């Protein structure tokens, strides 16, 4: 039955994207719409003394200005569950008072008839500040560091097993180094954009978001508006990488502004504004200590991370979490501390925690390998973790040894001369490096609706999003398999908060969360069809047993006699039905929580919960006991770099990823995802860095000419392989997430290859050429 899942079909939304017909959030034109432009603070700390908008108001087409002086009052949202919507800065609701906590904080919205007029008017708003001395720079403020109680969603972030200090003290081989990573910005190509339109009490919002239902609940909570009167739509999202996972002031402000002037408002952040009002990755300082035997067996591991957050929310870059489970070691200590700075609050950025964390851990492992005169791959095999020792659980599925083997073979690791600085190609130094990639496999509750129409086509609805990852496509494949329909006959509808609630597009969880719900909803429809046929005298399947009836080629028929059956169309037409629909909710990871807190009566989710009680796919899924398992994806990444010894210019020449991410839903799309992660990693390793003015705390590198992201010419030859063994535990789909893991490991692998080529170890990212002199 599993026929289309796994096939490398073209993206189902690809035609819309190549013809310019995919509609992103800024691309709607409600009647009478005005353009809003944000005015941002130009100081990092202080108070607004005065806002002089007299000049702005004289600009032809000026419609209005909104600031803390005249904006509506907001309510603090309750709870911090990212699935229920997370406002990025819990202590700084936008434009509620005159306090400034960071450079580039939203302080006013100027509205005008055209974009040009709004921009001009916004440039004329004169703001006087009472400037206070900001807390600037992580390195100079380490004395104020503290240990936060928990990470995002209450995650445990301090961990200890055994006695790492004592074991380190008595170990044969000791290693200790400090690694630093700068602030990074997501820089999705589509700027954050919102259009808000009120019609009476109803609010329609088009928003570039990774969570349409999250935005709806936040708008409802913050504006005090009933959730069922708010509709949030994001049909296409131009990349997110975490920046559109939390909700930033621009979304809320657009809805507030539209209310204030009683006209639809479109507000799009400029690229410059995205550097201060739409999140970022936190800067980190990470100290890693190893104790080992002379044979390379780890006896002690310590990973101490200091990252920074704002004064208005606490976000921890959990760089050490992977260290707690990646290698076998009896004595491990992982800690995370925070320093508060006058900067915008950080947020998840592609592989939050693991991306900077595996950089430090995997460079440290490489250093230890050289110290031990051991092959870096061998060191990892010696310390291979068969179980998750941090959680004392078995892995649901782990095939990492095979990743190492295949990756080494693909890059030609055996031909590498381990001697540092020994390999050349023409004028270039050649270096080989490798690292382990890992990211947790997440799954959260999701619901979906499936509808089968009498004309033989099916529709799936789920309020999750496709942020470019391919969700439209692989969910079409999953549903097509259950219905036994070609992909052309299945339409998957996402990105609308009116649909049943799906997972937010973050944490590599959509496939594992939404896939089972969509599958179960489709199974629910089939169950109804079977029952109808069995009790229908005129059906060839009349009186047969449900378990003997299968679906394929748009028909239901007997399992062992495909000729005995009928098409969906025949059955529905005879029954006089236009369509049959089913709701399903799969709920595995939070079963307990949701049982004690069921969905509100009358909501689609409540109906989905009710229907799911008799849905065989949901019941089978819920029956699996997942408590004894730890869920992680793994991979091995190998790179070959060329370094120009005269200019110290580094070119990544080849990069290989071998990934163990469970079932590969679509090889073409999965390969693209991993390649994208690898390229993100090249940026992280060699190019990207957000610089702050050390005096006034303002962002210096606030455009794409100063914040360098990889371009086509930076690209190596990329090779991606998958183990493609379905994870038998995580879900009936067997797929773990894939969005994040590509960027973990690769940064360290590049760094390790540069060391192999040059003998220079750079522990401060990015590895720019000045650091290689």
């Amino acid at each position, binding site marked *: 039955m599993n026929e289309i899942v796994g096939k490398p079909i*073209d*993206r189902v*939304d*690809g*035609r819309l*994207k*190549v*013809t*310019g*017909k995919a*509609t992103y959030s*800024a*691309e*709607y*034109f409600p009647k*009478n719409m005005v353009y809003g432009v944000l005015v941002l603070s130009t100081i990092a700390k202080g108070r607004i003394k005065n806002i002089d908008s*007299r*000049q702005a108001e*004289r*600009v*032809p*087409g*000026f*419609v209005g200005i909104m600031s803390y002086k005249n904006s509506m009052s907001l309510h603090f949202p309750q709870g911090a569950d990212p699935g229920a919507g997370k406002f990025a800065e819990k202590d700084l609701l936008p434009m509620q008072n005159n306090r400034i906590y960071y450079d580039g904080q939203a302080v006013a919205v100027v509205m005008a*008839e*055209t*974009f*040009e007029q709004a921009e*001009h008017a916004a440039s*004329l708003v004169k703001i006087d500040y009472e400037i206070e001395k900001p807390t600037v720079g992580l390195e100079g403020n380490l004395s104020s560091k503290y240990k936060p109680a928990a990470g995002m969603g209450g995650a445990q972030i301090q961990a200890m097993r055994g006695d790492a200090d004592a074991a380190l003290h008595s170990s044969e081989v000791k290693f200790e180094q400090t690694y630093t990573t700068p602030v990074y910005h997501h820089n*999705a*190509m*589509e*700027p954050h954009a919102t259009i808000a339109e009120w019609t009476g009490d109803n609010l*329609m919002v088009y928003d570039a978001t990774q969570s349409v239902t999250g935005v709806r609940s936040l708008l409802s909570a913050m504006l005090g508006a009933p959730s069922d009167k708010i509709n949030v739509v994001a049909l*296409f*999202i*131009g*990349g997110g990488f975490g920046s559109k996972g939390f909700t930033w002031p621009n979304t809320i402000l657009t809805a507030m502004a539209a209310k204030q002037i009683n006209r639809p408002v479109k507000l*799009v952040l400029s*690229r410059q504004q995205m550097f201060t009002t739409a999140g970022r990755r936190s800067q980190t300082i990470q100290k890693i200590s190893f104790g080992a035997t002379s044979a390379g067996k780890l006896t002690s591991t310590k990973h101490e991370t200091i990252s920074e957050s704002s004064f208005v929310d606490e976000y921890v870059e959990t760089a050490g979490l992977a260290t707690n489970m990646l290698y076998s070691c009896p004595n491990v200590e992982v800690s995370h501390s925070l320093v508060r700075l006058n900067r915008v609050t950080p947020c998840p950025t592609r592989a939050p925690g693991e991306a900077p964390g595996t950089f430090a851990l995997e460079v440290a492992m490489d250093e230890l390998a050289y110290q031990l005169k051991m092959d870096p791959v061998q060191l990892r095999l010696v310390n291979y973790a068969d179980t998750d020792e941090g959680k004392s659980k078995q892995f649901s599925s782990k095939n990492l040894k095979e990743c190492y083997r295949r990756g080494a073979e693909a890059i030609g690791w055996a031909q590498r001369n381990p001697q540092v600085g020994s390999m050349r190609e023409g004028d270039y130094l050649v270096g080989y490096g490798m690292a382990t990639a890992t990211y947790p496999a997440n799954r959260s509750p999701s619901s979906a609706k499936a509808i089968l129409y009498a004309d033989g086509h099916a529709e799936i609805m789920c309020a999750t999003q496709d*942020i*470019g*990852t*391919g969700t439209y496509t692989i969910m079409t494949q999953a549903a097509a398999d259950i219905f036994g329909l070609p992909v052309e006959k299945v339409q998957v509808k996402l990105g609308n908060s009116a649909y049943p609630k799906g997972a937010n597009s973050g944490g590599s969880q959509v496939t594992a969360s939404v896939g089972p719900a969509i599958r179960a909803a489709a199974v629910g429809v089939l169950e109804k069809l079977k029952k109808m046929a069995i009790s229908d005298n005129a059906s060839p399947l009349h009186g047969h047993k449900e378990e003997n009836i299968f679906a394929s080629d748009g028909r239901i028929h007997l399992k062992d006699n495909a000729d005995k059956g009928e098409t969906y169309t025949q059955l529905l037409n005879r029954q006089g039905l236009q369509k049959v629909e089913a709701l399903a909710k799969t709920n595995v990871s939070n079963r307990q929580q949701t049982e004690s807190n069921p969905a509100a009566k009358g909501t689609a989710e409540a109906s989905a919960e009710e229907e799911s009680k008799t849905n065989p796919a949901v019941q089978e899924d819920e029956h699996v006991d997942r408590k004894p398992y730890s869920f992680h994806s793994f991979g091995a990444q190998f790179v070959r770099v060329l370094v120009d010894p005269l200019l110290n210019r580094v070119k990544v020449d080849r990069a290989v990823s071998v990934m163990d991410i469970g079932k590969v839903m679509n090889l*073409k799309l999965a390969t*693209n995802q991993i*390649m*994208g*992660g690898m390229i*993100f990693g090249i940026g992280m390793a060699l190019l990207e860095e957000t610089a702050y003015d050390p005096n006034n705390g303002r962002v210096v590198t606030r*455009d*794409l000419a100063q914040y360098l*992201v990889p*371009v*086509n*010419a930076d*690209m190596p*030859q*990329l090779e991606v392989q998958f183990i493609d063994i379905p994870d038998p535990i995580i879900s009936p789909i067997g797929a773990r997430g894939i969005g994040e893991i590509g960027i973990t490991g690769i940064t360290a692998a590049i760094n390790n290859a540069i060391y192999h080529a040059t003998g220079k170890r750079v522990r401060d990212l990015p590895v720019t050429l000045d650091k290689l002199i």
Partner: protein
Amino acid sequence: MDKNPHPPIEDDSSSSSSGTSRRGFLTQVAVAGAGLTLTPLLTGAKEILPGAPPGPAQTSTVTLTVNGQKHTLNMDERTSLLDALRENLAMPGTKKGCDHGQCGACTVLVNGRRINSCLTFAVMHQGDEITTIEGLAKGDELHPMQAAFLKHDAFQCGYCTPGQICSAVGLINEGHARTDADIHELMSGNICRCGAYQNIVAAIKEVKNV
């Protein structure tokens, strides 16, 4: 809220806060005469004086030929070609990624040459043949570059894609790209943050070699 673009020509119904309708305002500008339109710099200079009102924006009537269709627009002279396409003509296929010519998302073809439409004013393009992503396909038949992008999965989120495709068509028109390295280099003005570069190059090679 359907896709109902605001009309390209000035609209009587939308009035500015001063109570002047847009058409009325434009008429005033026209009556004010050439003196005003010839001294934009002087007018601009006055704007920065404290207390002085900002000068009226200059407007012009321009006929843009986009994908073979003529559109006559009366618009703010400060309107970039990109904003004229996206906002005034409601053709949002061309994307705004940075508005500073640093990302290439807004690439369109002007008389067959690829340019960043955010770096040029719409009023400078009277008489030019402008081709956007919406104008590449012939009805249902995709342009070979569009078909190749689809086949090679040369995108993920799709936001840079219209610019990449227009840029790739321009690249082939230029005829400079002989090697893979040339393609990498000559496509480096178009950023793909999702990182589909390898597939983009594969798509371009396929079309180039046909």
